[in-house]
């Protein structure tokens, strides 16, 4: 698909950045002992991550289990204490904000979680779950308007407003995820961080929720950070994609750049592992089968973290960590020997 020009990938023009993540680092200490805790190491869960989220776009974070997607998202919102770095939102660094300022940020940036059931209080009705947001942020909506707005939100996410007094267990998985979305929308956010929002859903229901998220974005001008390990879902919903491996972004670009002009060997291997939906595709014959397991994030390889499993690795890969920059590629890649269009 080389005839496609690089810019063809983004059908939306990039808006101005609404969120800028600079060199975000989150290390978790590994401790030993009960009474006298000693630190015996660190898990480099998110290590020097930088990206921009533009207004109205969907940025995907994709990678395998444990690569640091959730840590990155939670640290942005200071749900985890950052180790270092900065996150600029509306001109201010979230990491340096007072509790009061942070509270306002957490209204504007809402989170949707993977497990719709675990994140909904089983003893609250759907109406109460949605309205609870306004108890924490009463400035958003006057009390007398809340009932009407709740009905409106339920309708908006495709739930029957007559079910406002039902409990979460009376809904299916897909419907519960809709409740979570209605709750997030209650505070009129401008950014939604969705951590594996459709991973637990069956494919037919997953498609309903994906379409809903797309419709809401178009209607409300939302920006999304969309986390998933499913490369097909990510391609479908995202404008731009960041691929993570062991706490680092290995390549970032628009959907066409990452999927069609894939530059990092890890992304190549990842894409080739996804089964093709066509029985005649013979994908298996061209598959890059990675050897072994992902190394421990407590003791990542020196230099490029992928080098221990990479078929292109040379001596240089064990030295300096390759930076995420343009390397005769149409998008930034953190590899000394990137794949280039032939």
């Amino acid at each position, binding site marked *: 698909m080389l005839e496609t020009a690089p810019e063809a990938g983004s059908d939306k023009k990039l808006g101005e950045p609404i969120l800028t993540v600079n060199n975000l680092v989150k290390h978790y200490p590994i401790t030993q002992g009960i009474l006298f805790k000693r630190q015996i190491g660190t898990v480099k869960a998110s290590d020097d991550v930088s990206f921009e989220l533009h207004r109205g776009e969907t940025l995907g974070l994709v990678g395998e289990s444990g690569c640091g997607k959730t840590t990155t998202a939670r640290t942005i919102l200071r749900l985890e204490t950052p180790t270092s770095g900065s996150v600029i939102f509306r001109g201010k660094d979230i990491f340096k904000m007072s509790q009061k300022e942070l509270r306002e940020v957490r209204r504007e940036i809402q989170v949707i979680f993977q497990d719709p059931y675990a994140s909904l209080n089983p003893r609250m009705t759907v109406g109460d779950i949605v309205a609870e947001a306004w108890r924490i942020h009463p400035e958003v909506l006057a009390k007398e308007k809340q009932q009407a707005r709740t009905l409106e939100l339920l309708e908006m996410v495709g739930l029957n407003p007559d079910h406002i007094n039902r409990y979460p267990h009376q809904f299916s998985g897909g419907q519960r995820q809709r409740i979570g979305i209605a709750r997030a929308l209650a505070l009129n956010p401008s950014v939604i961080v969705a951590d594996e929002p459709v991973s637990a859903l069956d494919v*037919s229901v997953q*498609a*309903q929720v994906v*379409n809903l998220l797309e419709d809401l974005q178009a209607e409300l001008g939302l920006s999304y950070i969309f986390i998933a390990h499913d490369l*097909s879902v990510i391609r*479908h919903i995202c404008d731009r994609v960041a691929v993570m491996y062991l706490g680092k972004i290995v390549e970032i670009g628009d959907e066409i750049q990452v999927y069609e002009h894939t530059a990092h060997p890890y992304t190549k291997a990842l894409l080739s592992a996804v089964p*093709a939906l066509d*029985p005649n595709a013979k994908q298996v014959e061209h598959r890059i089968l990675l050897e072994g397991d992902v190394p421990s994030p407590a003791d990542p390889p020196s230099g490029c973290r992928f080098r221990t499993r990479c078929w292109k690795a040379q001596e240089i890969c064990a030295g300096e960590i390759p930076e995420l920059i343009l390397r005769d590629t149409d998008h930034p890649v953190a590899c000394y020997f990137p794949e280039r269009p032939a």
Partner: protein
Amino acid sequence: MTQVPLQTRDLVAGKPAVPGAPLLSVENIHVEFRLDFGTVKAVNGLTYHVNERETVAILGESGSGKSVSAQAVMGIIDSPPGFVTDGSVKFRGVELLTMAEKERRQVRGERIAMIFQDALTALNPVFTVGWQIGEMFREHHGSTKKEGLDAAVELMDRVKIPLARDRVNSYPHEFSGGMRQRVMIAMALALDPDVLIADEPTTALDVTVQAQIMQLLSDLQEETGMGLILITHDLGVVAEVADRVVVMYAGDSVEKGEISDVYHNPAHPYTMGLMDSMPRHDVQKDRLNPIKGSPPDLMAIPAGCAFNPRCPYAQDICRVEKPHLHELGEAGRVSACHFVEEVRDARNRSGSRL
């Protein structure tokens, strides 16, 4: 069935008991769970078979009865509340459901093996993996501890666990998810089964690890000639490895056929809906086309065609008469839809084919 013991001996020795019979066949199986507040009709007439060297995929969404139907084959339905109320399960032509318990256990234990859906938690955390694999040999072949461990090392090599000899005394928590799944496969293969039922063997694993495990299963199948029944909800995995597919909805098959026929020319609105719901990593797709609504409550399956409330083609007859599987032109191709021809024409006209 006077000759059961003799047949069983042949069966366990891997000899065909009834010449020409499929390796394993499941016919019109029904399973229900009788609970205080109602009866869950989990499997409702499922029929399929698998031959040697063949991979048959059972494809369906959550709750469609895939695991329960496999449990019925293995004779491990949780009973009560679960009951197999009708149907037949034949191994090399010999009925298993009415076989005496002792023989049946032998056939099922040795000739038909299963990898369970929750495999990653199925290993016992307090015993070493070598001990757990060796258990199969100690129990079925009366091996000694030492023989069991040696056999475990050999099997671990076969499922490509690196440094098997060094790792045979490790505990499950010292293994990654992919390595634990290899241990489960080793245990399933220990007695050299003729049929392997793999229930979602890669669902909890990352895609690169999934590719490794599927490759391993297909190599092992090549080597042993076993029949593989692969239970999954992943259309991609099915497209890649299966010879034939059985699409399940509400406990019964809605269509069956050879893999490329089903993918290129689906013959049931449910299969079509699944395909149109799939996002793709290899092509740009503007908008997904989901199936409306959600799967039925198995305590109150809709009358007529179970899919009718979600089906864009449903007519009056679909709400009263259950469509039976009927044959289509292609080999082994069946569909349970009153309007197959019309539905296929409509789809071909609209051009929404893969």
